[in-house]
């Protein structure tokens, strides 16, 4: 599989989970292969941070199909800064809008909950595709 395709799949499974939470009459006829994702990851730009609610919104997508994934960030979630050095720890409050992050997360009845967050760099200065 082409790397871009692989990344694309990762990006957009998160919204799929959101969509899957909506009642759909066609669900009965959906193919059995539809992914039922409990754990996933997303790479994109920090859109907004709410320190009070400890939530992080990440803008991601493919081409003109843009999506926002909202993550709850419990206090014990490891946040690391790859841009500063391998696994350099950082706080949620240190993340800024426009930072490029990769987050691993899982679905919960209350929404998506982050497991790990890595800051890869900034949109404005660019981040390698491979990172």
């Amino acid at each position, binding site marked *: 599989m082409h790397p871009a395709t692989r990344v694309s799949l990762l990006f957009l499974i998160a919204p799929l989970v959101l969509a899957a939470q909506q009642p759909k009459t066609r669900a009965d006829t959906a193919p059995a292969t539809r992914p039922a994702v409990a754990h996933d990851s997303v790479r994109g730009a920090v859109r907004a941070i709410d320190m009070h609610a400890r939530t992080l919104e990440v803008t991601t997508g493919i*081409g003109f199909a843009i999506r926002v994934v909202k993550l709850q960030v419990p206090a014990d979630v490891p946040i690391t800064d790859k841009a500063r050095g391998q696994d350099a720890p950082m706080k949620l409050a240190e993340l800024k809008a426009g930072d490029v992050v990769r987050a691993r997360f899982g679905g919960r009845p209350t929404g998506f909950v982050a497991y790990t967050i890595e800051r890869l760099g900034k949109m404005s200065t*660019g981040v390698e595709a491979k990172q």
Partner: protein
Amino acid sequence: MNRCAIVLAALCAIAACQKPPKPGEPLRGLSAAERARFDSGRAVFDSVFTPETGLGPLFNADGCKECHEDPADGGTGDEVERHATAFRAVPPSGMRPCDELAAQGGFVFQNHVTPLLHAALGIDSEPIPAAATAVGRRTTPLILGFGLLDAVPDSEILAYADSDDRDHDGISGRPNRFFDGRLGRFGRKALVPALREFNDGALAAEQGVTTPAVPTEETVAGTPVPAATDPAPDPELSAEKAELLTAFVRLLAPPAPLKMSAEAKHGRDVFAHVGCARCHRPSFTTGDSPIAALRHKEVFAYTDLLLHDMGPDLGDICLALATPTEFRTEPLMGLRFKKQFLHDGRATTVEQAIQQHGGEGGRARDLFSALPAADRAALLAFLKTL
């Protein structure tokens, strides 16, 4: 002359006489397998979707060809769509200056809905949220030759960037970036990094057709479409067909320039002299590619694929790093096939489009306006060969 020499001479003569591809035809030099994929991909490109086969519920067109039709598959069309975003030069704490309104259905707000969605919500198009600070009209770009643009290495594009105008020529040129940090190149604001993503995103955002890469439908102002309005199971187009579609677009030949008259050749010099070529860079060279027809080729696209400030009169939406007044230099290859000009089609002639350049394009515009009539005519004659 022995028989081999005759055959060789005949082959050389045939090659020399080979006409350049017409619009909608593939690049020359494809292998049989590549040509077969091109032909299969054309069938996907020409598909007309219905709600039962995946169209909508929100959409701008029922197939690629509805818009990209003139003068052939991959060409332009008369459709105009709406993009909307919210820009705040001083953003609220913790926010970027540009909000693509993705959580509210943006930034593409579809012009049409299927009958089922109309019946469910009573809407004829996707409403633009009150939070939008601008709505941009967008015409259909020609996508001929986009496979070659896709094969241009990032380093080639970045080599032209001069974000802070350090050479003081009044032309900056700065890269846009997708949300994951990769360099963008496709779209009027250079948002999209790669052709495959451009196509997969278009299937979802323009036609409402889901794929394994984009498995979810667009929302109506942020609310998922009612399930009963979307009868086709996701993904509505297989990965294989989406790949064939991209193979077709990737292998479409760029429009071959017309033979230049003496006047047009003079116009090419004028084009460079007045400074048009500082943004509309004549050519790029592609990098390595598994497809020989795309490998190390010069593509005469007349763009630098970078963002330039075009002044407040042209400004509309922001997108990722692009401010409302910044636009990617529009490729001029295939210009002769266009009937409306600039990103929103406000100009009906090339000359009008030049006259409406502002910002970084203002100096070239003024120099063009000050040219003797014969030089202006020569420049326009050159552009009509592209």
